[in-house]
Every structure is written in C-alpha cells, then in structure tokens.
C-alpha cells in the first residue's frame, strides 16, 4: 500500500513536471488551442489511432477522414465467400466513434500540402493539421498483371477489399458446377494478409468437399514459400486430400497474364482455363500516400518505427498496410498495434518530448476449417529503421497439436475478431 502511494505520487510529480515542461516549450498557438491531428482512413489502423489519441489526451482535436459511412472488414470475409457467414457480420459504422469526441468527415481526402499542413477534401474544403496520420490501406495495382484491370475484376474478382467483391466471388462459387476448377492467383510479397490466400483456399475447399466434391482448387503462386505453410499443407492433406493443388513459383505458378473474356490464366509454362478465377493482384499503399509524397519506389511508405513517422515527409505518420513495417505483416492486428504506438508517439511529440522505443505484438489466426484454427505470432521492436522480430519469441502453432488445440485456436480467432471490432468501432 505504502509502495503504491509512493509510486502514484511519483507519477503525479512526473506528470506535473511534463505538463509544465510542455507548456514552456509549446508555441503560443499550441498552448492556446488544442493540437490538431487529422487521421485519413477509417479502417483498423486509422479508426484505432483516432480513438487512442483521444484516450491518451482528451484535449486533442482529432478528425477522422474516411471515404465511406460503412466499413467492411476483411478478416473473416473468407468465411463469407465459403458461405459460412453473412456479410453483415463484416460491416461496421462510425457512429460510436463520432460520439466519442472525434470529428468524423465522410469523404475522400484528395490532396495534401505538407508545407501548409493541410488536407484537401473532395468537397473542396481543407483541414489543417499539426500531425497527420495516414492509414489508407492498399490500392490494387491494375497496371501490374497484363489483362487484369478494374473491368477484369468484375469477371475475375480479387475479393481483397471486402464488400461487393466478396459477394461476387461467393456467387461465382455457388454457381460453379460440381467438377469445376477454381483458381486463386497469389502475388509476390509484400501484400495484405500473407496467410489470407491459403485460409481462403482452405475454407473454399471445405465448401467444395461437402457441396461439390468433384471440384478442384488450384493455387497459382508467385512465391516458393508462404505463411504457416507446413501447417496449412498438413491440414489440407488431413482434411481435403487431393482437393487443393499448390503450384509454386518454381513449378511455374506465376501468372503472367489473364484473359477475363475466357477466364484464362497464363503462366510461362501453361494456360489454365478455369470456371472461377480469384485473382489477387500486386498491391501498393493507398493512393493518398503517394500524393502526400510518403511512398518510395516500392509503392509503400518507409517510416521511423519508433514514431511511425514518415522518413520522407515530416509530421506525417503512416500506419497499417501502407507502411513498410519490416517483419510485421500487413494485418489488422498489426495495424491496430501500430495505431496505438503511433498515438502515444504523437502525444509525446506534441508535448515536446521524444518517444521511447516501443514493442509491438502481432497475432494472425487462420481458419483451415470452421473449427480448425492455426496462428502465427510475433513480438517486434525497432531495429535499423524497421520493426524486427525479437528472436526466440513468436512463431506458429505446433505442427503436431491435437485437434482440441486446433478447435481452441478457432474459438480464439473468433474471439479476437469480436474484441478488435469492439475496440475499433464498438
């Protein structure tokens, strides 16, 4: 008890000192009006960050700019495609966020002036910022795979942004004859949700096994290895023998062009004519990042991992799928963890202090069947300008776990989605 009193008194003194120091350091305008933080992108990264900022400092003036009134979440959307889940379970709104003192602007941010520190909106108005956070997610590159453009995506859905595309792939799968072939085309790294294509293959196989057992699923991959590979492959053999064929890069898996009119997928070695073609194209950071000048040649955004601030443009932070996070995968979990780290760093920076080195966690669950979950986890810290894996920590579920453990991880996966959905939007 005495110790507790002592430490809380010490903490109070520290807080008071920090407050005095920040007053002394702050410019007159900062001291008079609250600091303005604008967050662009109301997904797992941006919405989490806006909330965390207000939680850390309720006096901050926080504006969340996002394109739509509704957010459709990707995690668990593979279950929608497989017919085990309603799309409504993926939909979130911003009403609760708006009641928490965050100003909500529902339109596209179109321009950014880093000198004037302003954001130009679709309706012509501008927002001023002291700090800007970008969490725009990904843009699909419709210039990277010959034949695959926006029109092609209406024939060969990517379903890599959830919503209409998810439902389109679902309908195509339902309409497919028993005995049909469905292909999933997977890009090279880096891309959103590294285990996502293989979870999708698993859940589609689960559907085919019970409903269209003569069908086949082929994965045409631009890589020779993938996330949780041994776990996925062992489970495929156990649950869906002979149903899924994975064609690696070195076996001619890389698709070099597509023809949407005939549902044709061309590799250097073969031409695959399929009933359903799920083409996941290469990706880059959401367009606004390029407009802001925070992307590099790769199309993604280099950041300082301590503050998530762009290394190219001051006062702009980039979180989530859009940033180059080193060992951290592009996941909703990562985006959420980065958002909270970024919010802390911004509050610290606005007070005139320097943020200290953080540690972040990621855990990505995948469902191989509705009651069969596997996971990969990691703990990260800044090293050489990136988030690096802490050695000895993290890794995947064990290869030889009993089914009860897989069932438990499936339950944890669902629990994770409930919890993060509530933390971000609830």
């Amino acid at each position, binding site marked *: 008890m005495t110790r507790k009193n002592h430490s809380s008194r010490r903490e109070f003194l520290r807080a008071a000192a920090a407050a005095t120091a920040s007053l002394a350091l702050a410019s007159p305008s900062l001291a008079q009006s609250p600091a303005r933080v604008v967050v662009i992108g109301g997904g797992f990264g941006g919405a989490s960050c806006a909330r965390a900022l207000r939680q850390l400092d309720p006096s901050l003036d926080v504006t969340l700019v996002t394109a739509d009134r509704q957010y459709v979440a990707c995690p668990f959307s593979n279950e929608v495609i497989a017919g085990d889940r309603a799309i409504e379970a993926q939909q979130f709104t911003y009403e609760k966020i708006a009641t928490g003192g965050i100003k909500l602007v529902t339109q596209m941010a179109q321009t950014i002036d880093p000198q004037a520190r302003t954001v130009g909106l679709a309706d012509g108005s501008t927002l001023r910022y002291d700090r800007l956070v970008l969490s725009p997610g990904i843009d699909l590159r419709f210039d990277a795979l010959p034949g695959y453009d926006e029109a092609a995506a209406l024939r060969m859905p990517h379903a890599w942004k959830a919503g209409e595309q998810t439902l389109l792939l679902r309908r195509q799968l339902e309409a497919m004859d028993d005995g049909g072939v469905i292909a999933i085309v997977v890009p090279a790294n880096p891309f959103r949700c590294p285990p996502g294509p293989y979870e999708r293959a698993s859940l589609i196989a689960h559907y085919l096994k019970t409903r269209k057992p003569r069908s086949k699923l082929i994965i045409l991959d631009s890589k020779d290895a993938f996330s949780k590979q041994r776990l996925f492959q062992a489970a495929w053999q156990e649950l869906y023998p002979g149903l899924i064929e994975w064609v690696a890069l070195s076996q001619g898996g890389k698709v070099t062009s597509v023809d949407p009119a005939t549902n044709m997928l061309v590799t250097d070695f073969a031409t695959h004519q399929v009933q359903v073609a799920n083409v996941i194209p290469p990706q880059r950071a959401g367009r606004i990042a390029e407009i802001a000048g925070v992307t590099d040649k790769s199309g993604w955004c280099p950041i300082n991992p301590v503050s998530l601030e762009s290394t190219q443009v001051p006062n702009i932070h980039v979180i989530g799928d859009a940033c180059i996070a080193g060992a951290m995968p592009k996941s909703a979990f990562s985006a959420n963890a980065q958002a909270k*780290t970024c919010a802390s760093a911004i509050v610290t920076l606005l007070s005139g202090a320097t943020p200290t080195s*953080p540690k972040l966690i990621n855990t990505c669950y995948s469902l191989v069947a509705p009651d069969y979950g596997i996971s990969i986890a990691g703990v990260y810290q800044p090293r050489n300008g990136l988030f690096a894996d802490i050695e000895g920590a993290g890794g995947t579920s064990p290869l030889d776990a009993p089914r009860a*453990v897989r069932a438990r991880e499936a339950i944890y996966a669902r*629990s994770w989605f409930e*919890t993060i959905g509530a933390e971000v939007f609830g």
Partner: protein
Amino acid sequence: MKTLRTSLAIGLIVASAVPVRAASAPPPGAASCSGCHAPTSQAIPNIYGRDADATRSTLLAFRNGSMPATVMTRIAKGFSEDEIGSIAAWLATQK
C-alpha cells in the same frame, strides 16, 4: 518547501487544464494486448484491473513454458522479466 508546494500547485492547474497522461502511458508491448483481451471477451480472459503479481507470475510461467498455452507462450518470450513486471503493473491500473 514553499517552492515545491508552489510548483506543485502550478502543476495541478496545468494538469487539469491540459490533460497529460504521460504517467499512465502503457509500457512497451502493453498497448498491443487489447487487440485480443477485453473486459467483455469470453473465450480469451480479461487481463485488466487484476492483481499485478498474479498477472506477472502467469506471464513468467508462459515465458518459461511451465504453463501451457496456445499463443501466449510464444508472445511472453518476447519480453524481459522487467518488461513483464511493468506490463503487469500497468494492466492492474486499467479497467
């Protein structure tokens, strides 16, 4: 003493006008926990507002493998004893 009390008083006024949460900022790693753990989560236990010593010893047991778990054994290995102590203490103060 008078100086200290005066500066404390200033600190108080400032602290209430401009909330500064530096004292309650999460220690390294702790902000990530709420991705999975919440007071309302059912399958995954709530970790907030619980006795710091209990949380600390559970995390240490995950870390040295003496307590089995699906994912926490892998995560706890990413933290030193000191870091685990700070995380447990901070979680205890959260609701």
